[in-house]
């Protein structure tokens, strides 16, 4: 396959009303310039974005799925960390 030798890139798009870039998917491209153009052509066809980031997939350090018990389960029992035990005064309005 031709794509095997072509690097993988992760694509992040900032939408019209969104503040942060969000991960939308990945693509193959030989270099950063073509990756950016491919991201434009694949992920912003319906007016989704105002800004694009592309990142080599290899540059991402990911957590190990097999360690998810150690990594994430301890947080599940700490419900007191959620800010749901406060009475918010009406004057504060929508937070």
């Amino acid at each position: 396959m031709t794509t095997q030798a072509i690097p993988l890139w992760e694509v992040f798009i900032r939408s019209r009303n969104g503040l942060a870039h969000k991960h939308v998917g990945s693509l193959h491209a030989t270099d950063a310039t073509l990756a950016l153009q491919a991201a434009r052509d694949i992920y912003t066809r319906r007016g989704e974005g105002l800004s694009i980031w592309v990142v080599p997939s290899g540059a991402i350090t990911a957590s190990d799925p097999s360690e998810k018990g150690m990594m994430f389960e301890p947080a599940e029992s700490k419900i007191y960390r959620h800010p749901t035990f406060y009475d918010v005064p009406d004057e504060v309005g929508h937070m």
Partner: protein
Amino acid sequence: MATASIQVSETPLVLYALRRADDALILGHRLSEWCGHAPMLEEDMALANMGLDLLGQARELYSYAAKVEGKGNDEDRFAYLRDVRQYRNLLLVERPNGDFAATITRQFFYAAFADLYWRAMMTSRDTTLAAIAARSEKESAYHLRHCSEWMVRLGDGTGESHRRAQAAVDDLWAYTGEMFAVDDSERCLIDAGIGVDPAGLRPRWLDTVSEVSGEATLTLPKNDWMQQGGRDGRHSEHLGHLLSELQSMQRTFPGAAW
């Protein structure tokens, strides 16, 4: 069984709009032929996107031609019910896709021209043409950027990609002159501030093409002999085949809609 071709009253302005519309439709159709066949999925989408941009340009120009003509024709009738000799597109845009290098080179030559052309037309005294140009210019600017990047990567890539890109440049060069030709019909519109004088754009087109080709380590042919005829309906054998596919549904089932 087949539907007869329509008659078109080609006043200078109708002809002017039809020529640009035909360029966009035929080149867009050529790009659509890549759909599902491009070297990689990413480029499949890129080619289809460019094709759809061109189809959008064609639709607006056909609709305007129909309005100016005022004989009850519309965009569909112009696209589907004119014979090959009634088509007014450049010979360049009907060239077969060939390999990926040939398609990109064809698109590069055209986009480098169209970008300048639409930008100049934005100041046309014809407000409809100026509006179409304003939208089309942004699309062509991206087509030019995308194709320029590919020209450099193909030309300055591997021995094989260089050979194919150089072959495409050599093969298509003789079809670039027609973009800058002006006949009497267009001369009157240029003098009236409605049309764009393409001859004046050639030095800048050549600058762009030379710069990108240089970076791509490709050599532009010295040959100045240029093919012509598309603007007057004298086409290569390839356009008839293209139209037979493009028009087959409407010719076989007149007025079919879904």
